[in-house]
């Protein structure tokens, strides 16, 4: 590495530091602004915030892998053997989050059914007829 090269390399590193710092600040800004911490009463919808934050994080990951870990300068075969298996995680995320959502749904169903049971037992029969004794559990 010559003197020119090292100066160029230093510049790349400095740029990387600034870039990653700015992206991190931006992410935190979105989180704070979107949750109403910066301006009272102003909030962002989650479907706007989340894709932005996920996108910025993925860009950070790309930058760290390609620049800092020098993946850019490796052979294509090495890149593929390392990065392609990560695509499996896409399905893992979809499948497991869907499963988690189903657990929530099942819990709600069970809770509702329990509620029905409690109400059925706990509700005293309405005194419909005056003077007449009502026998609980003696329904026809």
């Amino acid at each position, binding site marked *: 590495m010559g003197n020119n090269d090292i100066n160029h390399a230093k510049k790349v590193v400095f740029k990387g530091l600034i870039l990653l710092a700015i992206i991190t600040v931006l992410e935190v800004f979105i989180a704070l602004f979107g949750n109403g911490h910066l301006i009272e009463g102003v909030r962002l919808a989650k479907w706007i915030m989340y894709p932005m*934050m996920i996108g910025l994080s993925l860009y950070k990951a790309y930058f*760290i*892998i390609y620049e*800092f870990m020098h993946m850019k300068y490796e052979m294509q075969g090495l890149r593929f053997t390392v990065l392609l298996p990560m695509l499996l995680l896409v399905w893992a995320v979809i499948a497991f989050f869907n499963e*988690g959502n189903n*657990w929530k749904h099942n819990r709600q169903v069970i809770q509702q059914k329990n509620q029905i049971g409690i109400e059925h037992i706990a509700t005293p029969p309405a005194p419909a007829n005056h003077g007449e004794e009502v026998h609980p559990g003696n329904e026809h």
Partner: protein
Amino acid sequence: MDSVAVHSNVAENDQDMWEGGKTPFKASYGKLMMWYFLVSDAFTFAGFLIAYGTLKFSVPTWPLPDFVFSSLPGGITHAPLIFVTIMTFVLIASSVTMVRAVQEGHRENKNGVVFWMGMTILGGAAFLGCQAWEWTTLIGGENMTVTTNPFGSHVIDGVYLDDPHGHPYEASIQPESFHAGETYLIHKDHETDKWIQRRYQTSEGQVGVQEFGPKAFGALFFFITGFHGFHVFSGVLFLLIIMVNAASGIYAARKNGYEMVEKIGLYWHFVDLVWVFVFLAYYLL
């Protein structure tokens, strides 16, 4: 003497070749295997983070990170996500100094390698210190443990019937109100060591008591950040060993551009990479 010299010469060339007589992907054995180790480690971390997401999806409410992580050293309490942003900066900075160490290695500049590795170690140690403070605050100050999560969330709007000390509000005082989705922290009475679960009345008229939050939040927080922190800790140890080796001149004698520094560099950047996703999953989303 001559034959020995020839033999060692051949051996040196052989080091660059794998058994098949070629270097796959033009990478050394050690570097390639470091990459594949990192692939397997990435799946481990992905498993933990996906488990976190799955459990978060499976319950109606989840503690809001900008409420849970809002303390700063010095008793400041309403600074959401500021401390963890500082932690992220520290880790990014240590990643950048690591890049410098690898660059100086390529230039065969021993002093440069040792200096920048030293800076990286300082960054790693600072990050561990930050994490120790964060854990101490959560465990010691806010009583979160692996099995108890005092950070719960409201499901519907309402007003509190008890004040923060657990006593019913006096008639003259305007009671505190809350909104759906807001996270609260159940405090502990310092004298009796009992939880203060405030009673509240929802806008629909039901009376309830502050419930504890999902256990998985605390358990996975300590597990995931702990596993990451352990990676940082072992990374600092490896960096120390390799820095001492570099200073001793052992890598200079190998004349391979301080490849060992490059390998530990890959590991160190990976630790930073994982933090990007831990930060995203735990503190941002």
